[in-house]
């Protein structure tokens, strides 16, 4: 590995200027000639059959091209979800083909689609479509869904009901301190600024181009190719920028399939850009959860038994499952016995999906609140309780963590926050008339790595273009991958153009599970090896090169722009001298996508610690978070600025989860009622406190050659618990159902 200092600085984003000047072109902003516009008609019943659809009035609106229903929509050749590995071939959480039959499975389901020459015409015509239904009694909550409940053994090929030891024995031991509590989280919706949308353009009968707001261009390509039975290369997906996603653009949703169907039906390109309200029913959400935590510990705080039982919902047309305990509680603390159990209930509600730290986010909320309750029952400091139970090894698999540094997170966080000045007595700390509460929690998120490939086109003018079909969700991926490329290829940062967001490029996986930097970073490392090998092969045949007749495998990059002997770095040659002598003005290298590796020697997992201060007016007890310290081990930090922003965003979203965010449903129709940005309360600038972010630890070279781990999701974990624990510390009231709104604290004063 070359010694450079490219990584780790707080470099500005390469696309910063494009973003602030509006020059960055988002998927639905591409100008496709003759493009028509789609507007959906949505079901306002949760279950039943379509009896009739009268679209005569809609059809007569000037500019309307067609009204598609289950009766007339062209059907793709393969309506069902492909049975292929999701990581490689795309994700379809909602498995039902839209407009495939007369059945209604949830409120908000698309039951017709108007296509018109203008958006207003399409929208107006959609309002004139009259749908009559034969409704049946919907199943809207887990109580009603008992008989179809499932306990999946695996989720995404990972065991989700892990067990160790005998928790029953620990819970029956009367000498132990035990707590058992149930925690509730509501439905949450991602709400990125950019709504999902797709432009579908059939460039020929068998050639489809999609401009799609997506976290997975290759996935969309595979899914649409499968649906329409096309060679994969006949489908192109383009998405150079994403305006936030948080998981809701990882799968392909009905609008992607319908845009292609509508374009097929009308013979013109069709843009289907979701209105905000549809983002609450047709682009996924986080399921509500009910989680019961049982913890038993000896008087010194050592955990003897931990049980995490979760109940979550999925839809009747999908199987997405939010596994709350398997990758959080199961490896958080050193306990003699651990039992994770989860049950999933299918309901007539739109299909849920990944939302920032799916599973770990609600899971750490429940676990870390329970740990706070246990600390109080034990009369122990909450940080001390966690230190006592620190797990050196993965508690279930009993293998070491690759690089953990959690104790350092606690120590640094406590110090930066001033935790030692905390009076543990609830309600004891004041700021004038305001109650002050300090709470903390552990953060955790798995380190995921998938597979990717890349291509470099190097020119002797010193510039290089590097390509991978990966994504920048607004997180800074363009910048990070340019930096990693600069380091790995030995080419100046300013000379590299990194291209992503196009299915034409070598494979990139879904930008989900915080895997991108590790995955694509690894691919760039491998590609750099190929690139340097190609240069070495020129050198060893070049009599004028100092490396003439050396062995190619002994040659590597020895300095930026130079390859040389590993054993004698003085013997080296510059990229450009080599290429010029060979009469070339460029050199290309391209890698192939490999198979995912299984490293069973380590558990790869990131950890961190949050410390939160809240202030509450006891008379009008709306919680205000005033201070957060968040310390994270994320391996090697590629870019200090974008890394910090990831944690800031996660913390703020976590505060929203704790205090305000909830998608509420109408009990009669099953429709969401808080389905716009005025009623679904994400945090505003005025809500955002001072946030101190710090990173600790060392590069994790066991995990990948860059040493980095993802940071997109760990930021949101733990925060809701730290806020809830701070609220308890301020008030003495334990709120176990989120969000903690003013009405839940009125009995405090």
């Amino acid at each position, binding site marked *: 590995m070359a010694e450079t200092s490219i990584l780790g600085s707080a470099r500005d984003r390469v696309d910063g200027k494009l973003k602030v000047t509006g020059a960055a072109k988002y998927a639905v902003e591409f100008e496709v000639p003759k493009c028509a516009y789609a507007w959906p008609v949505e079901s*306002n019943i949760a279950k039943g059959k379509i009896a009739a659809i009268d679209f005569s009035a809609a059809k007569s609106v000037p500019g309307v091209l067609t009204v598609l229903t289950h009766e007339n929509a062209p059907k793709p050749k393969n309506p069902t979800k492909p049975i292929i590995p999701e990581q490689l071939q795309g994700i379809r959480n909602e498995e039902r083909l839209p407009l495939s039959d007369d059945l209604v499975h949830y409120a908000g389901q698309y039951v017709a689609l108007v296509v018109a020459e203008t958006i207003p015409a399409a929208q107006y015509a959609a*309002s004139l479509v009259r749908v009559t239904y034969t409704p049946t009694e919907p199943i809207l909550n887990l109580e009603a869904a008992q008989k179809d409940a499932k306990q999946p053994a695996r989720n995404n090929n990972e065991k989700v009901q892990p067990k160790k030891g005998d928790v029953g024995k620990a819970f029956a031991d009367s000498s132990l301190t035990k707590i058992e509590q149930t925690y509730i989280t509501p439905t949450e919706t991602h709400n990125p600024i950019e709504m999902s949308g797709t432009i579908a353009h059939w460039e020929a009968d068998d050639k489809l181009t999609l401009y799609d707001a997506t976290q997975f261009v290759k996935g969309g390509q595979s899914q649409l190719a499968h649906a329409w039975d096309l060679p994969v290369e006949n489908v192109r997906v383009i998405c150079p920028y994403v305006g936030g996603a948080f998981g809701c653009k990882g799968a392909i949703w009905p609008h992607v399939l319908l845009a292609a169907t509508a374009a097929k039906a009308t013979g013109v390109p069709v843009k289907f850009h979701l209105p905000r309200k549809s983002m609450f029913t047709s682009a996924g959400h986080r399921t509500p959860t009910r989680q019961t935590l049982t913890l038993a510990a000896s008087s010194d705080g050592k955990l003897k038994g931990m049980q995490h039982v979760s109940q979550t919902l999925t839809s009747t047309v999908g199987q997405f499952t939010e596994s709350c305990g398997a990758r959080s509680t199961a490896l958080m603390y050193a306990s003699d016995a651990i039992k994770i159990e989860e049950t999933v209930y299918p309901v007539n509600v739109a299909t849920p999906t990944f939302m920032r730290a799916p599973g770990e986010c609600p899971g750490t909320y429940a676990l870390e609140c329970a740990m706070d309750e246990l600390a109080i029952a034990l009369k122990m400091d909450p940080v001390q309780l966690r230190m006592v139970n620190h797990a050196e090894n993965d508690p279930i698999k009993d293998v070491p963590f690759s690089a953990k540094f959690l104790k350092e997170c606690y120590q640094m966080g406590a110090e930066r926050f001033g935790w030692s000045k905390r009076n543990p007595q609830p309600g004891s700390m004041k700021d004038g008339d305001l109650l002050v509460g300090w709470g903390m929690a552990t953060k955790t998120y798995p380190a995921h790595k998938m597979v990717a490939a890349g291509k470099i086109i190097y020119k002797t003018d010193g510039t290089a273009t590097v390509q991978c079909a990966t994504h920048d969700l607004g997180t800074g991926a363009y910048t990070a991958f340019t930096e990693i490329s600069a380091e790995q290829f030995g080419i100046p940062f300013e000379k590299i153009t990194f291209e992503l967001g196009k299915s034409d490029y070598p494979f990139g996986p879904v930008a989900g599970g915080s895997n991108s930097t590790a995955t694509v970073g690894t691919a760039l490392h491998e590609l750099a090896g190929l690139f340097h090998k190609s240069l070495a092969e020129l050198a060893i045949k070049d009599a004028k090169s100092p490396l003439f007749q050396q062995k190619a495998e002994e040659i590597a990059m020895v300095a930026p722009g130079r390859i040389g002997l590993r054993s004698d770095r003085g013997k080296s040659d510059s990229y450009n001298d080599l290429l010029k002598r060979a009469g070339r003005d460029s050199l290309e290298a391209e890698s192939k996508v490999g198979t995912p590796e299984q490293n069973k020697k380590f558990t790869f997992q990131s950890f961190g610690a949050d410390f939160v201060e809240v202030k509450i007016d006891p008379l*009008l007890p709306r919680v*205000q978070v005033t201070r957060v310290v968040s310390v994270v081990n994320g391996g090697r930090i590629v870019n200090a600025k974008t890394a910090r922003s990831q944690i800031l965003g996660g913390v703020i979203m976590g505060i929203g989860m704790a*205090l305000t965010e909830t998608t509420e449903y109408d009990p009669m129709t099953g*429709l969401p*009622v808080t389905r716009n940005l005025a*009623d679904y309360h994400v945090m505003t600038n005025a809500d955002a406190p001072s946030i101190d972010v710090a990173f600790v630890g060392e590069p994790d070279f066991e995990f990948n050659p860059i040493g980095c781990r993802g940071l997109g999701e760990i930021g949101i974990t733990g925060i809701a618990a730290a806020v809830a624990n701070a609220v308890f510390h301020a008030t003495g009231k334990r709120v176990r159902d989120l969000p903690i709104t003013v009405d839940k604290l009125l009995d405090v004063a």
Partner: protein
Amino acid sequence: MNPFSYSRAADPQEAINGIGQNPAAKFLGGGTNLIDLMKMGVETPPHLIDVNRLALAEVEELPNGGGVRIGALVRNSDLAEHALITQRYPMLSEALLAGASPQLRNLATTGGNLLQRTRCYYFYDPAFPQCNKRVPGSGCGALNGFNRVHAILGQSEQCIATNPSDMNVALAALDAVVQVQGSKGARSIPIGDFHRLPGSTPNVETNLQADELITAVDLPAIPFATRSHYLKVRDRASYAFALVSVAAALDLDGRQIKSARVALGGVAHKPWRASKAEQVLAGKEANEQTFRAAAEAELAAAKGYKHNSFKIELAKRAIVSALTAVAGMT
């Protein structure tokens, strides 16, 4: 959005004539609420008469000493920062700044804010089959639905929606007078008579006639309104409608309350003038017991539903908090 035609009025008479010819037309001011509702398919006017060019954008002192006239087209942001308002009626400035976002306030007009429609979910989204405001006779979806933000005072079985405006609450406390002009001439409507309780006709929200144009809002001289405050309790720190809000002013002689002005927002179909609370306050000493007694008196008739009963206690506390803040002003 339904197709509509558009015209621009040069003066109030032209606007009034226009609406006389097409009673289903709507005046277009800032459009921050009307256009939103048109996009949602809730409002479907066949014609819009743009009144933005009318010469009604001034804030001026009334001739008879102390009062202020606010032109109907004065933008919320301009009004909030106007010296006559910040000095004489600070509660109005605070109420305006507590509402919406800077971008919306830059467009929203005084007249339009008076006519702002409810944020009841069942009204705002035509996907819901029930709403007596949107489809008279269809029932109230909120009554047995999700009703966390709904009314606790003055509501009916036909409608439990609230008036969402912050400005209106301050205007109610200040005894504002709405100046209107119509085909039958000009008239003045006291703010208390401007908005209506829902009764059995929640679709009729004000006593403004279809052919009447709001031209101005007059604020009477209230010297003690310099000692006033608008308190808004909401789910987040900015850009959220009030769960409850209080506009309060106290006329104090030492610690003795000579008279009080109190109005509530977020609790009723109209900005709720808290006259019962004012009666309790008059003549009493300004202290927490007095404030609590006033709040109890005002909320005695309150009725909550499945998700909003907390508003009753919250409103009482907001009254105490707002009055405490006003009493503590120097």
